């Protein structure tokens, strides 16, 4: 009797597990399928790419689309431009954010409360309000069609980065900092020599998130850049897809090539990435 009950319980458990796996595999397939389809297209000849119905495996692998993309100077120039725009600023921005977070987490100062509230308010300001006036102002000071509007505001640090790092700094014991102060390190010295090295994982997580956001950014570069040789990678990709005679394998190969570095970074830095998202997502 008891044995039979145990057995039926086991059977139903196995059934639930199977259904669970089936649903999860199906969900993953739904996510991956679009990518695999464009992957397939990218390895076809142009003639085959427009053949209907679609075939997954045309029976050959044609890498000429990739050859063309890698031989396309515009793509490389775009990548270089992206790195120029994002590269230095992500370090500066994370540094200024960290300095601010340090003050909020570890220094007891008069304006702390009100300054933090102002920072919280800054996250509520919708970008759509500042879109037009910022453009007019940047145009007035000759910043349009330069990288400055994409770099300078970011260099001051961002509120979300401050929140995340402040949270992390809270977890670093005060006595370590106090001991360093007794040894004669000033506030800034404490920050640079003690806090930053201790907070390395958090800083790396923020730099990664910053890089991915900057690399993927479309709105800013699209709004401010006009000259083609200044285009970032995303703008170059956008321009390729917009051309009238669409060479689908080439377009798909470029899309895949632009996506791959981010997917690779995500694979290797999953832990920091997920933690960064959960922490900034949930606060406190």
């Amino acid at each position: 009797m008891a044995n039979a009950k145990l057995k039926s319980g086991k059977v139903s458990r196995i059934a639930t597990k199977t259904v669970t796996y089936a649903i999860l595999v199906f969900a993953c397939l739904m996510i991956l399928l679009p990518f695999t389809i464009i992957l397939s297209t990218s390895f076809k000849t142009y003639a085959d790419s427009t053949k209907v119905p679609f075939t997954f495996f045309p029976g050959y692998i044609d890498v000429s689309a990739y050859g063309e993309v890698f031989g396309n100077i515009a793509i490389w120039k775009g990548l270089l431009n992206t790195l120029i725009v994002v590269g230095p600023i992500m370090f500066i921005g994370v540094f200024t954010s960290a300095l601010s977070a340090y003050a909020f987490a570890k220094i007891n100062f008069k304006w702390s409360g009100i300054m933090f509230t102002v920072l919280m308010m800054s996250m509520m300001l919708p970008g759509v309000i500042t879109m037009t006036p910022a453009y007019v102002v940047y145009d007035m000071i000759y910043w349009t069609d330069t990288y400055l509007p994409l770099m300078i505001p970011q260099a001051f640090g961002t509120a979300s980065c401050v929140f995340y790092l402040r949270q992390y700094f809270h977890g670093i014991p005060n006595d370590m900092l106090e001991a360093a102060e007794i040894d004669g390190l000033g506030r800034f010295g404490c920050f640079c020599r003690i806090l930053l090295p201790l907070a390395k994982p958090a800083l790396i997580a923020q730099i990664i998130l910053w890089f991915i956001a900057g690399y993927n950014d479309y709105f800013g570069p699209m709004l401010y850049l006009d000259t083609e040789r200044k285009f970032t990678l995303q703008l170059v990709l956008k321009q390729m897809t917009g051309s009238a005679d669409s060479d689908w394998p080439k377009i798909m190969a470029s899309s895949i090539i632009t996506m791959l570095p981010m997917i690779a970074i995500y694979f290797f830095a999953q832990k920091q990435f997920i933690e960064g998202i959960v922490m900034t997502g949930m606060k406190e």
Partner: protein
Amino acid sequence: MRKEAARMTRAKRDNIYGTLFAASPIIGFFLFGLLPMLFSVFLSFGKLTTFDLGDMEFVGFENYARIFAEDDRFFKSIGNTFLYAIVSVLLSLVFSLFLAQLLAQEIHGKKVFRVILFIPYVCSAVAISTMWKWLLDYNFGVLNDLMTAFGAERVDWLNEKATAMPMMIFMSVWGGLGYNMILYTAALTSVNRSYYEAAEIDGASKARIFMSITVPLISPTTFFLLIMGFIGALQSFANFQIMTPYGGPDDSTLSMVLRVYNAAFVEDSMTYGMGYASALGWIVGIIVMIFSAINFVFSKKWVQYG
């Protein structure tokens, strides 16, 4: 006495260093957020057909009056955006909670599933939109292959009124699943096990446990994802602009921000221009800020459980 003085100077020093260190992002916000915002109020009362402020002509409330009197496209874009935001955020939450709940069970390969579901999140809007444009292409798209395989007619997905917005919603749900699922997973793992154990001892069914314990306990996360997702969706731009730059068939995929952008930079500046666009921007901004304010007021309650 001397000790007292030393403490005083230390407090003073802390005030100076603290303010100095903390200031940078706040100065950035004043310069690049608040100042343009105030300037935007000024612009919205003017007619400006170039980007040169010297050409501005003060017109008072004319821009706002015109918007409310005749800008049907703008009001259509508000409706579109709310439809998009409500449906895509709700669907995304339901699916991601379902998946997070499945992943919370003791199964193998959790990590692999999570990694895969999250991939769209790290891909750029341009690349993802390009991909979907190809899949939804009228002549060569895979989706239409499927349609014809089942004996149905081809559909011009992004150029037909009935299908354009549903496709935008579908793409948004597809892309946002991973993010919501990760935050739900974090919330589910923080639920105290003993609640479940107690309920199991009492003989509650799985569905009952889920509805009466899990859902209420993770409600702070649900609220957070709901409101943040909604605020984000209300400001959607890149996906709409790339898929349907001019607002799609009969403006059915014209989002609020796309309408503002087009008025400012794409459409005839003699009819609209920067002043008019600033007025539009303010209306959209106020709509968004209402939801931010709701979030601000209720955000203190997120932490309650956990």
